[in-house]
């Protein structure tokens, strides 16, 4: 029986304790302060206290983001490569314990170094105590993102291909840290207007970072649930889409010129537009990043059949891009309604629905390329085809067909014949290719099932 002491004692988390055993040794405990001390002494000799402060920040970035990002990205993928992950999946450790055990355990040694850097920063006195929460939250978000990306991309990969997955997770940690740093720079100069509030930039940044930590942990937790074979549920993803839609809509202001025009749109329109564009973009991202294997999709579609007899699984096990697409359509309907109620360009509704059709086409392209294919090649192939559709083809054909951009991607002043109908045709074509791939994927199964 688990006692209260076990519950509150982090060392009772087997995963965290395992990492402490493997990550810390007497040698490593001594080496970290020794090396950092040498670096700070050198910085002091070269540039005085300013140099030490900068060196501590740089060391913290290297430790928390670059090294910590690698450790977090490999927290699961290294186990898959090492053949221990299936054993972990059968453990009694719950998804939350495994989430924090891995996130803090895999990066425990880097946090040991980060703690030394923070103490040095405070000792020098240039970086204040009130700066630390933002730095720490940035590190947690970066590491959490790396773990999330590592977990998403390891699915369906051969163990030999997982090194690239870890690298991508690490790159995403650096990218997230860079984005947060840019927001810090942009918002710290003034106040941020969000919905009805006008907040100091650093306060808004801290609140946004707090929300990001929650969502990163929620995302990893959802993936852990999935890995541990808890009942599938779409609620985390749906709640995240709602949150991001509301978050993005909060920045919209009335009077902002509508896409590609000088016309000031009503606040409801700009807010719905921001929400719609954000959800549509995330849906496409989800389609690209998902493991689109025909077996999982067939199993999902078989939910209401007598063979499985679990109709509710049609909702619970729906791929992320399906729920995202449904939400995009709902937002498109809401936006269309809002556009009819206010003064808006006549082509705005056409643009909205062409965007939905382009999204359907893009999901079709993604499925055609990566259904049952090698995970890495499939994902990269899908990205390349999308770049060709959105960037290369419009560029190459622009002179020959001046309206080509409108027919290939959402564009201002969209028309029914120039944008909506081509988008519909491409969507139908892309899904015809998906149907072809689907039939091919099922050929082996049909042959055996009917023998």
């Amino acid at each position, binding site marked *: *029986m*688990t*006692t209260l002491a*076990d519950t509150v004692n982090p060392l*009772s988390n*087997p*995963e965290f*304790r*395992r990492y402490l*055993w*493997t990550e810390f040794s007497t040698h490593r405990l001594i080496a970290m302060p020794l090396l950092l001390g040498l670096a700070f002494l050198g910085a002091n000799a070269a540039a005085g206290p300013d140099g030490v402060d900068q060196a501590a920040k740089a060391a913290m970035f290297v430790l928390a983001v670059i090294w910590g990002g690698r450790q977090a990205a490999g927290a699961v993928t290294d*186990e898959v490569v*090492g*053949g*221990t992950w*299936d*054993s*972990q*999946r*059968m*453990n*009694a*450790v719950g998804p939350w314990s495994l989430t924090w055990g891995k996130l803090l355990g895999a990066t425990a040694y880097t946090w040991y170094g980060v703690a030394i850097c923070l103490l040095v920063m405070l000792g020098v006195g240039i970086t204040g105590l009130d700066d630390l929460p933002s730095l720490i939250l940035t590190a947690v978000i970066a590491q959490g993102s790396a773990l999330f990306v590592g977990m998403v991309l390891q699915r369906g990969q051969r163990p030999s291909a997982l090194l690239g997955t870890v690298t991508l997770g690490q790159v995403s940690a650096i990218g997230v840290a860079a984005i947060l740093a840019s927001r810090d720079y942009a918002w710290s100069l003034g106040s941020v207007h969000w919905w009805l509030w006008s907040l100091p930039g650093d306060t808004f940044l801290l609140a946004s970072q707090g929300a990001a930590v929650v969502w990163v942990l929620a995302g990893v937790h959802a993936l852990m649930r999935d890995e*541990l*074979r*808890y009942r599938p549920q779409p609620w985390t993803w749906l709640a995240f889409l709602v949150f991001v839609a509301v978050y993005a809509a909060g920045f919209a202001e009335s009077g902002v010129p509508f896409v590609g025009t000088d016309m000031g749109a009503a606040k409801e329109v700009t807010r719905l537009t921001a929400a719609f564009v954000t959800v549509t973009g995330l849906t496409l991202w989800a389609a690209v990043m998902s493991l689109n*294997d*025909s*077996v999982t999709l*067939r*199993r999902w579609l*078989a939910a209401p059949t007598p*063979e*499985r007899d679990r109709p509710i699984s049609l909702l619970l096990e729906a791929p992320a891009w399906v729920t995202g697409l449904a939400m995009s359509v709902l937002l498109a309907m809401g936006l269309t309604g809002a556009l009819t109620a206010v003064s808006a360009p006549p082509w705005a509704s056409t643009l909205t629905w062409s965007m939905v059709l382009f999204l359907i086409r893009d999901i079709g392209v993604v499925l055609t390329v990566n259904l*049952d294919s090698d995970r890495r090649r499939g994902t990269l192939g899908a990205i390349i085809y999308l770049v060709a559709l959105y960037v290369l083809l419009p560029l190459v054909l622009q002179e020959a067909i001046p309206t080509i951009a409108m027919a290939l991607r959402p564009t201002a002043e969209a028309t029914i014949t120039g944008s909506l109908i081509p988008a519909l045709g491409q969507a139908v074509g892309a899904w015809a290719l998906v149907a072809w791939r689907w039939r*091919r*994927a*099922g*050929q*082996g*199964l049909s042959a*055996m*099932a009917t*023998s």
Partner: protein
Amino acid sequence: MPLDSTPDATLIHVDGLTQDYPGHRALDRVGFSVPAGSITALVGPNGAGKTTLMRCLAALDPPFAGRIRVDGLDVSDSPRAVHRITGFLQDIFGLYDGLSVRQGLWHAAAARAVPTREIPGRIAWAAEAVGLADRLTQKAGTLSRGLRQRLAIAQAMVHQPRVLLLDEPASGLDPESRADLAALFRRLRHDLGVTLVVSSHILAELEDYSTHLLILREGRVIRHQPIDSSSSGAPTTDTAARVVVRLATPGPDLTTLLGTLPDVHHVSHDSLDDPTIRLKLAGGHDPARRAALLRVLMEHGLDVYAFDLDRRNLQDVYLDHVRAETAAPPDLGKVRP
């Protein structure tokens, strides 16, 4: 954990299990039941679906269709509950090389929810059971392949599961360790009532401890039967038995002659020069019936120099079935009892 099920109670029940991989059906409408406290030898050619079946039984992969119940738990509805009562050693397994044997076993026990105060005792028990008690402080990364295999087995059973699934558990072990492993499996079955499903290509080794045989081929069950009387109940004296007769001077028309004898069926004699004849004798498990047959053979002037029950080993049974399936594929949706 004493055995709390009756010996013949079903612990694992599989019905219509179908599992797909992209473009390939790995398991096709598989169905069978495993009695509690039995040791099932899971055999079949490479690619038969053995590992896929084990992963489904361990609730690691959700089946495409069909039902699996382990100790009354549906693996699709309650996979986490199945995890708690199951131990699984895969053929390709990993260990945390930086941990000592004791730390590895502590992690395995704590992660499988063994109460903290019981963990030292479980570590001692598991290490003793696999012969690693004198290596508790040694790092896993420094162990030989055979010792790593033993540690992996110890980790899979340290929480004393009701079901233990082992995929090629003896690969990499020396003959002495294999014998120890067989003894361990028998102890787990008898002392703790653990139900084991063991996959291996070394059939002689499975024969040492298995009570049931499950043959898979191309994703379908082609045979599932008790191996001996220990699990299926002792054969009665009325049961037919295969008898092998060896003659010093093989002669012509032996098959015809033996076929005319009462209670003798299915006489097989490969060639005129072959001194070995196999037949099925009604009530052959009764020694008196066999003695009567031997008397008849002697009265017919046959030079019998060997006469006994035809004790066929697991490999013979396996090859018979696999070859029969290769020669004439049956209605594969059905499982012959």
